[in-house]
């Protein structure tokens, strides 16, 4: 079993001296996700958005820390809580909002909704409504790269809930056996739907990866630079043909499992715990580090915040104004 020591990662990648543009890119993408998700919260609460929404608020550092290490042709698969991954990989907020509102200009012309957004041009193989569903797809994309001799790697984002699905073991076994270029990113937000991992998950996650001989590391998922360090290690070794890698990012979702899970409706976690995690806000932490470290001025970050705010507002207006799909589309694209 090969478990990577986090100290080694710290030594290999000097988190305090990365290019300023990279820091700003990470900051921008995290703020974009936060503003997008809180806007979804608002749209859903006001009845503008139908269906289901699983918000990524509080977990932004994971998607961003990983996706900034990827190339354009790399593939990702995502989860039911997928907005963050899509935005981090370059997804267009206008087409995402349009999809959430069931509009023709949406990524999936309104046929997928929140849990199924795909952008093949950006290597986004899709959010997925089935827990662990994306693991097969991402691992298959890795197999595809190997057979075709293509240069891409694929990244599977999945949650602590998926870690208990059988599919993870079936596909990670093959990935390790065949040295497929796949990086597994476990987003451990400590709750699978309404049940804590302490009540659902035996042992520890790294040992499960280790059992497949997949090198694994666990990091603070609310520290974007820690995620970046681990992802860089994972992506580099996997891209070099050394086989799959595994990174556990420990984090927390501020909102409920989905929009129907508000306050104490289900009574599975308490307000004190939520507030404790909100103090560890990944964006606030990163912002403070950038300002306190004299890397950027607070005013520059304020300006970025405002630009993103405008971009999100404009995206929502675009989505609201977009037409609904023509009724004839209901029978289109069942078959190729």
């Amino acid at each position: 079993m090969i478990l990577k020591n986090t100290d080694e990662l710290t030594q290999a990648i000097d988190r305090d001296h990365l290019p300023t543009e990279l820091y700003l890119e990470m900051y921008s993408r995290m703020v974009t996700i936060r503003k997008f998700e809180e806007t979804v919260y608002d749209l859903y609460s006001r009845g503008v958005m139908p269906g289901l929404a699983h918000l990524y608020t509080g977990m932004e550092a994971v998607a961003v820390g990983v996706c900034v290490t990827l190339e354009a042709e790399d593939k990702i698969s995502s989860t039911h809580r997928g907005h963050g991954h899509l935005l981090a990989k370059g997804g267009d907020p206008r087409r995402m909002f349009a999809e959430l509102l069931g509009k023709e200009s949406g990524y999936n012309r309104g046929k997928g909704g929140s849990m199924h957004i795909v952008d093949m041009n950006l290597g986004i193989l899709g959010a997925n409504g089935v827990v662990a569903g994306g693991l097969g797809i991402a691992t298959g994309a890795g197999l595809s790269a190997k057979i075709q001799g293509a240069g891409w790697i694929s990244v599977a984002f999945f949650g602590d809930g998926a870690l208990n699905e059988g599919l993870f073991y079936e596909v990670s076994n093959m990935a390790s056996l065949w040295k497929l270029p796949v990086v597994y990113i476990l987003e451990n937000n400590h709750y699978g739907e309404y049940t804590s991992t302490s009540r659902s998950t035996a042992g520890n996650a790294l040992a499960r990866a280790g059992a497949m001989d997949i090198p694994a590391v666990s990091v603070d998922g609310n520290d974007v630079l820690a995620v970046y360090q681990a992802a860089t290690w994972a992506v580099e070794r996997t891209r070099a043909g050394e086989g799959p890698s595994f990174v556990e990012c420990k984090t927390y979702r501020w909102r409920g499992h989905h929009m129907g899970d508000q306050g104490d409706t289900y009574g599975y976690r308490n307000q004190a715990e939520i507030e404790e995690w909100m103090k560890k806000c990944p964006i606030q932490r990163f912002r403070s580090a950038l300002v306190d470290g004299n890397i950027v001025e607070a005013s520059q970050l304020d300006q970025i915040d405002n630009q993103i705010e405008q971009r999100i507002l404009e995206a929502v207006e675009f989505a609201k104004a977009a037409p609904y799909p023509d009724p004839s589309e209901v029978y289109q694209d069942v078959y190729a």
Partner: protein
Amino acid sequence: MSTPERIGTIREAINEALHEEMRRDERVFVMGEDIGLAGGIFKITAGLYQEFGGERVRDTPIAEAGIVGLAVGAAMTGLRPVVEIMFSDFTTLASDQIVNQAAKLRYMTAGQCKIPLVIRTAMGAGRRAAAQHSQSLQAWYCHIPGLKVIMPSTPEDAKGLLKTAIRDDNPVMFLEDKMTYNQKGPIPEGDYTIPFGEARIHRYGSDATIICTSSMLYPSLEAAERLAAEGIEVEVIDPRSISPLDEKTLVQSAVKTGHVLVIDEGYQSFGVTAEIAARVMQGAFDYLDEPVRRLGAADVPIPFAPSLEDLTIPNADRIVEIIREMRA
């Protein structure tokens, strides 16, 4: 038939189609349990590993959901996987991948991706293999929009339909009745394909119509032969592809004969026979002399004891009885 042909088995026909398609298109690869080095438990994939190597002919762990899951991801990203699930009973282990992923991705993404995936699997009872190695689950997959369901009954059809399946841009369930693997017949040489959704009339007749799928063709032809001796001329039609279904040919025959029996080895209740019967009755109601009859597997888990198993599967005696009743 203008294409040159030879006589061979369904096993050889499928094997030949796989070889030819892998030579024709390097995006085609095969994957499954024991299909490489060992050539598959029914020897359907024999020789592929030797010709194409382990990269394109992949022996997998026993992990049906994983196999199909990987195939979906590979199909989405430019390859054309052909996977073998050893027994159709085991497709249930991969049913999330088949039903929730493969079948729906194109529609859910409004056509942004295609899933050119073939799932070959051995179905059918009669091998004394009991309840978990004998089922015919075609109705499950016919029920799902986005999937195509193909059931060949002859070597010629097996070759032509499999080649079409591999070239199709959709997920295709290719159901092979294990009891027909040794069935012999002409195999057209070379680039021979059969379009989906075209039934084949195996025998012409004007007194009654039998619509039968897969291995049910053989007891049906036997029954037709016996009935002909009694002066009852039966038309025997194999739809070959169940989804899409060649409704037109089936209805035309019903209009002509006025008496229709539908036979499929899946369970009779809520099965393929029910759907075909409903469509034929809708299309030919005014021409029918009686409601369409159905014959499927008995609604029980397939028993092991040969004496019991034989009672669960449609056979020529039962078919003859039903047609006689209909013509009485």
